[in-house]
């Protein structure tokens, strides 16, 4: 798989059946039916979009970062990447990507990890894992923290070196860049539009994103 498999989509905004702006720092939860296409647009550029996916009918069957990178033999997500679940199923496939590279090792920021990474006094800043919890708690009784595993960071740049170093770098994304996925089964998506202010993952300025859904076979 090439490093940056740039691919545009043929689907037009006017034919989308769902179109919503998710403000900076907000959470978003929604079902996507098998065959539908789901697009995330980085409206202003360099915005990390922390994302979890679940089999809509079995939340224990959920996106697995380790299974996904191992199955494709590469840590970066781009066009052609199949998103594997913890039980070995393909949840979605990335079918278009104008950014070229997305992260799945950096995880989601949290009040607790911010204390470790930056300062114990940073506990009270808004963070992604609080947004994930808000999203799943409003979805249903059966969901709890144990269902939050390791996520994708669309538009985020976390390079790894052959010497085994990992860093958070300035994003490769720009205003209007997008990623589009085809659902291979009915899936639930949970997004935290990242509020992190302590590192360059959002260029120190969290901004809105736009999410759209198209029905199968609509161009």
């Amino acid at each position, binding site marked *: 798989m090439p490093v940056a498999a740039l691919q545009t989509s043929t689907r037009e905004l006017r034919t989308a059946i769902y179109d919503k702006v998710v403000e900076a720092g907000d959470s978003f939860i929604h079902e996507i039916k098998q065959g539908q296409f789901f697009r995330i647009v980085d409206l202003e550029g360099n915005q990390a979009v922390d994302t979890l996916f679940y089999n809509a009918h079995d939340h*224990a069957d959920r996106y697995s970062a380790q299974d996904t990178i191992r199955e494709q033999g590469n840590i970066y997500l781009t066009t052609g990447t199949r998103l594997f679940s*913890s039980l070995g199923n393909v949840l979605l496939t990335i079918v278009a990507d104008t950014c070229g590279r997305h992260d799945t*090792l950096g*995880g989601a920021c949290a009040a607790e*990890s911010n204390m*470790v990474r930056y300062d114990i006094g940073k506990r009270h800043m808004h963070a992604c894992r609080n947004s994930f919890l808000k999203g799943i708690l409003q979805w249903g009784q059966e969901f709890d923290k144990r*269902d939050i595993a390791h996520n994708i960071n669309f538009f985020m740049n976390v390079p*790894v070196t052959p010497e085994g*170093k990992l860093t958070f770098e300035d994003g490769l994304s720009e205003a209007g860049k997008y990623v589009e996925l085809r659902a291979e089964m009915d899936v639930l998506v949970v997004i935290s539009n990242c509020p992190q202010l302590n590192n360059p993952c959002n260029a120190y300025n969290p901004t809105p994103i736009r999410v759209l859904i198209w029905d199968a076979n609509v161009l």
Partner: protein
Amino acid sequence: MESSILWEEALPGAATWSHVLKRGTALRLTDLEGGTNVGATFFNFENPTERFNLPDTLKAQHIARLTKGCVLYSDMGRILCSIMEDSLGWHDPLSGCSNAALVNKKYGEARYQQHRNQWHQNSKDNFFIELAKYGLRPRDLAANINLFSKVVVEEDGSLHFAMNHSTPGSFVELRAEMNVLVILNTCQHPLDPNPTYAPKPVQLTVKKVAAPGPDDPCRMFRPENGRGFTLTERYFL
């Protein structure tokens, strides 16, 4: 305080093992034959919703490999285990574990009915079974590390399994900083290109160890770890 051995045991290949490793004890793993792989995952035994968090471990220490000085973070900003000793310099945190489909594709199916305890086992199903012994479900398994294996990430992001990484006598030692439910599995690494089903044994040594001091190498490894130890110590106050 001198460390003192509490007990030793050998795990055969394709075995699964679990133990609540108490704060103040350590687990040394020693490769007996060379080429072993030990999948491992970790929970706070007192509240297993607190568990090993792979991204927090990597980003707090700016690492994509595990070695001496590194610690394993939970999702709650605390340290489950510290890597006190390591003769290898690289253990793989990235690749996850084998599942039934991978094992059947790579080695072929070998069922219990024909092969008895030489049947072909996979890591993920055995993690799930061991978790169930503690009332935990598949959704409780977030990620695992692979001790004794090295997987290099090239500049283009591609993963490359390092051959002949671990030799007989290679060892790594994990000190428990909490009361940690440790689950181990000795199935082969999922990216090991060896086409032969040949999981290798590992020696386990459990011992008492001194609490980490102010100049402990894991505490001093990075400023982040200093804060991680502080938060872990507060949990026991």
